[in-house]
């Protein structure tokens, strides 16, 4: 079983599925000859030919819309936005078409497309290269928003996303593209969508996160364990539709909850999770649900980005705060 990084797992999943389903095609800027600016698609053009791995002109509206058109024909396009910061031109296509085609034709025309984008900060990238606006997509009914946070989950969730009969926005936390390697079995086995993953069990507090922040969250859980606080860590993975059951079960047990995300706080996905838990677990909660998030501002350029990103000590402090109540 090879030890692979998250971005290699993405590549493995794409290769597996292209090998097993001739309908899977890839399109995006610089994905073919160059293998993508993060090398997520490296080698695939050589292996599957330029007809299935397509460099597009530089036009995100077009990339989104072309993928949708392909999907209506039963292809399974996987479109790459080079960075999440450049996804917005594709918004109209995602909101007004990808998310709705099945619904508006009552199932006659569907859109089994995947829209991949690297997202998040912390890699000292230039302006517009550190976005975390997953909440925009999670609010759109008809879109699935999936975020892996480990090589194994990247592999299994991407396979599931491609096989899913409806559109999936698949956001890859680029800060951890190469942070850790992990054995991943290349057996084509998908992981379930619409399900949170409990990464660590605990009794005192539920820590909910996704993407790169999962790593600070797990580190915080380690530190808390040293302090005798037992934290349950949940990776939401599919942000929408949201698996509230797993979250509520955990909070019913722990009575306390901290949500961690890199996106700005106001209207982030953490708000929906906090609101849902505060409503449904009202009687279970022994402390308010607290959010540890980015600030409500534009992601700063890299000299200040660490001041913006939630740190392990922020999470620990938040847990100490809710435990104190």
């Amino acid at each position, binding site marked *: 079983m090879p030890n692979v990084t998250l971005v290699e797992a993405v590549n493995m999943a794409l290769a597996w599925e292209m090998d097993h389903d001739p309908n899977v095609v890839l399109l995006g800027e610089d994905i073919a000859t160059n293998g993508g600016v993060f090398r997520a698609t490296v080698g695939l053009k050589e292996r599957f030919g330029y*007809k299935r791995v397509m460099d597009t002109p530089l036009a995100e509206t077009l990339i989104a819309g072309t*993928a949708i058109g392909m999907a*209506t*024909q039963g292809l399974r396009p996987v479109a790459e936005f080079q960075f999440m910061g450049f996804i917005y031109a594709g918004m109209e296509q995602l909101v007004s078409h990808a998310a709705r085609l*099945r*619904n508006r034709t009552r199932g006659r025309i569907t859109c089994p497309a995947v829209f991949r984008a690297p997202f998040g900060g912390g890699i000292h990238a230039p302006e517009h290269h550190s976005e975390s606006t997953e909440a925009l997509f999670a609010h759109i009914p008809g879109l699935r928003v999936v975020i892996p946070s480990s090589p194994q989950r990247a592999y299994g969730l991407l396979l599931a996303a491609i096989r899913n009969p409806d559109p999936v926005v698949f956001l890859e936390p680029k800060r951890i593209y190469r942070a850790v390697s992990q054995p991943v079995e290349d057996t084509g086995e998908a992981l379930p969508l619409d399900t949170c993953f409990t990464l660590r069990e605990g009794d005192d507090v539920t820590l909910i996160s996704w993407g790169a922040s999962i790593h600070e969250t797990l580190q915080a859980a380690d530190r808390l364990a040293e302090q005798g606080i037992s934290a349950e860590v949940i990776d939401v993975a599919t942000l929408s539709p949201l698996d509230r059951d797993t979250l509520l079960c955990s909070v019913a047990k722990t009575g306390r909850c901290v949500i961690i995300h890199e996106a700005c706080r106001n209207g982030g996905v953490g708000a929906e999770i906090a609101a849902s838990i505060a409503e449904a677990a009202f009687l279970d909660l022994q402390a308010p649900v607290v959010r540890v998030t980015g600030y409500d501002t534009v992601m700063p350029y890299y000299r200040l980005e660490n001041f913006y990103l939630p740190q392990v000590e922020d999470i620990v402090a938040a847990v100490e705060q809710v435990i104190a109540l």
Partner: protein
Amino acid sequence: MKSRYDFHVDSLRYLNDQGLPLDALPTWAEESERVLAAYRNMVLTRTFDQKAIALQRTGQCGTYPSVLGHEVVGTAIGQCMTPDDVFVPYYRDQAAHILRGVKLSELLLYWGGDERGSAWQDCPHDLPIAVPIATQCCHAVGIAAAMRIRDEHRAVVCCLGDGATSKGDFLESLNLAGAWHLPVVFMVINNQWAISTPRSLQSGTETIAQKAIAGGIPGHLVDGNDYFAVTDQLLQALERARAGKGASLIEAVTYRLGDHTTADDATRYRSAEELKQAWERDGIKRLQRYLHHRALWSPDQEQQLQTDCKATVELAVADYLAVPPAPATDMLDYLFAKLPKALEPQRARLVVRHGQEDV
């Protein structure tokens, strides 16, 4: 040291306003059954259109965009496409939809505020009506790309208005169509107006067809009220597309003879005189004159056709009005292939609130 690169678009017309050929007609024009079928579809479309407007005015249908002035282009499209081709419409393509197998009652259902109006039982492959302007152009190139990937000899026809040619989606799609040699024909129906915005404010270009030059594909102007010109140019463009020779853009010049939609009042922004002149170029009348001239049509036949069309439309209206509202739960049941667990409580709530059976 100066040098230059030259480009052009051509322009095609066969009939004058009186329906008399200006030139030898293309050979396919000898198939009089084809021409007569075209004429019948145009009249049916116009009959339907008047009825739809009437339904809206009497509160039996929602906002509706009249097809008046577009019947010739739509009919040519419907005739030139094969069942294997894919039609990517905008919202004023009734004439083409009818020939592609969409039921009149389905069109009414759509504008009557019911998603089932896009479920098109007898037209499974065409894309649904696209309201967000020009967005469908990207789908058209995606579909055409799928055809190329699969080495199929099929083509896509994508319709849009003159206003839509200002929007990036269209221009980006033109460029892809050229770069990838895609089997797609962009049919721009230049009816001179985008709601209240006249063609002259929409773009400073002499023609719309010349926008093809920015995509590196051929651009053609045709008289959009001339059935022979539209058909002939489209047949050539489709042949080219299916033969793997790439995309084309056709600008069909016509006029929006009605209001933009039933919610619009065109007298606010355009003159009665302009409208009157446009009626003189009406393509249905023109084809009728041609048919008379060729002794292919008689007043009796016209009478009969009008009666038949009215009857067809009345039947469709009856079908439409008989459709009961969909269950409220439909709003959730078609969002995804399978209802996600997260939506189950909301579906249950709809059932409780609106008394629908659970599935």
